[in-house]
């Protein structure tokens, strides 16, 4: 007997907040699942869940809304959380484990896109592409009274320090190598299959790098991993690129370092308190800002959607999940 079918109805999938392009989930799944849409109800969430979600066995996350004890306690029948994201910091994994709830995610489908943006941001900061685009589009090049934009810095030969050599970090490394950069990394554990130099401390990595690229997930261990000490070790010519999560960096310290010239520049796709971005950064030409779009291409969103739906289908058919988060 398959999971969650009650009185011949379609299996229920709880959705607390809709993921991006939710209408496409609906159109693809209209004959597969019944989505229980909590945000459409006038009831407060707790009440909605106690009233309607007691028998729900599967949940589709939007990738941001926190899935922690205070939510899970209202879902006694929950067996599966599917998140369309690769990031898992919004989910309390140990609480899920404790309750016997399996988590499925997007694995590495977004890794190329995220790596592409990391490289794009780095080149932009170093070669001042956004600065140049602004300059030309404001008509300043032809103007006789404006100054030329300052020279950029050569990328070839620069030392790239990657934080987190998982799927994203590896794609970042491959790309920068083709530009003639040298790669070293810090990760939870050394990876012997890679010949890049390993640094057991982020501080050591920063001391020996011209740029730090953050490719790891956010956890208790990586919260504010990049602090003032690390930033000062990176130094006045150093650049920080963040395509991980905002809270991996002590944002207040980073802003101060940038404003004071203690580090050379930054390319940031993520922030501690999105969509709010520290206004001090808007005045800086050595900073490139991106509104958390590293994984958000049409192709990757479609892949994430397919994977999420595939995981839900597999679950209801008692088959192995496509991309289960393994406990490590």
């Amino acid at each position, binding site marked *: 007997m398959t999971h969650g079918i009650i009185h011949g109805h379609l299996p229920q999938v709880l959705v607390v907040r809709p993921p991006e392009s939710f209408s496409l989930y609906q159109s693809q799944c209209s004959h597969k699942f019944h989505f229980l849409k909590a945000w459409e109800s006038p009831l407060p969430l707790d009440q909605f869940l106690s009233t309607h979600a007691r028998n729900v066995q599967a949940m589709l996350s939007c990738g941001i809304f926190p899935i922690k004890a205070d939510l899970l306690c209202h879902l006694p029948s929950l067996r599966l959380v599917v998140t369309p994201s690769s990031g898992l910091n919004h989910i309390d994994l140990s609480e899920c484990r404790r309750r016997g709830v399996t988590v499925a995610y997007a694995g590495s489908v977004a890794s190329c896109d995220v790596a592409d*943006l990391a490289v794009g941001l780095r080149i932009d900061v170093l070669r001042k*592409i956004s600065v140049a685009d602004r300059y030309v589009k404001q008509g300043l090049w032809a103007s006789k009274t404006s100054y030329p934009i300052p020279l950029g810095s050569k990328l070839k030969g620069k030392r790239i320090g990657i934080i987190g050599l998982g799927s994203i970090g590896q794609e970042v490394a491959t790309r920068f190598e083709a530009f003639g950069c040298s790669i070293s990394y810090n990760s939870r554990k050394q990876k012997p299959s890679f010949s890049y130099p390993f640094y057991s401390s982020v501080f050591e990595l920063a001391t020996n790098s011209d740029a730090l690229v953050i490719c790891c997930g956010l956890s208790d261990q990586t919260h504010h991993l990049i602090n003032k000490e690390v930033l000062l070790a990176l130094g006045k010519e150093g650049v920080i690129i963040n395509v991980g999560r905002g809270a991996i960096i002590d944002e207040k310290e980073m802003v101060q370092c940038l404003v004071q010239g203690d580090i050379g520049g930054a390319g940031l796709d993520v922030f501690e308190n999105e969509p709010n971005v520290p206004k001090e950064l808007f005045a800086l030409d050595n900073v490139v800002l991106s509104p958390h*779009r590293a994984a958000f291409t049409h192709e990757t969103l479609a892949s994430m959607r397919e994977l999420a739906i595939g995981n839900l289908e597999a679950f209801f058919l008692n088959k192995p999940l496509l991309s289960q988060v393994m406990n490590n």
Partner: protein
Amino acid sequence: MDSITVLMTSPMSDYLENQLKDRFNLVKLWTYSSKTDFFKHNSHSIRAIVGNTKIGADAELIDSLPELEIVSSYSVGLDKIDLRKCQEKGIRVTNTPDVLTDDVADVAMGLMLAVVRRVCECDRFVRRGLWPKGDFRLTNKFSGMQVGIVGLGRIGSAIAKRAEAFGCPISYYSRSEKPETNYKYFSNIIDLAVNCQILVVACALTEETHHIVNREVIDALGPEGILINIGRGSHIDEPELVSALLEGRLGGAGLDVFENEPEVPEQLFGLENVVLMPHVGSDTVETTDAMADLVIKNLEAHFLKKPLLTPVV
């Protein structure tokens, strides 16, 4: 050697200017209010020209300097130098290859990523405070896009090597096929444009390559296609490019060079699928110094009757 008079054609590098001043008797063309004034004072003393992509050495200038022995260009491009005239008169010509290859290739990649992933537009979006009002739209995936390169020389090859790391299949059109590469060769630029999603102009500007990207090529590239130019503005029929972009017949463009620099068609300023740079492909501290050093070394070698380092003629 400060009895040797060298002409610098336009302000191109403070570092180079100082190096030239230290070693030679430096004459700066832009400090003269009129051509006649300039020629009256200098035509018989100038033995070397240091030119760049703005002002090189055309027939008129060469003919008016009877003591001219060498043109040392602060560029790799030679389109502003009358090479035939130099050859006829036995005037040596040098340029700055190799030292700027990586930087120019990096800008080509930066432009591709900026156009496809809307990097500059996203930066603008955040700075204008628009993010709290709603997310930026989805963009297209860059990795795996088919990249077509016009001109597989030093710079074209460096671009290919980088794009390969993103899983981009590489094809090219060049004067001759390069069997030592694995890239797919097309014998004409239309077929290349039909078969790629991003077309990169990386060849030298000559009579044959003037407007090599014309309406036909732009149409072949199509409404999803992207054009990147790090060559010379005159490689592309600029008015055709502008109308194609305005009418949506071309998907996007990343341009570091223009037909009539520093003039840039204003109709491009409001387009989010277009990224514009003011001819800064080789403008890094490291490379501009290396280019200047090469110019100086070539001049010194010439006047010391030693072999030139990077001769063209």
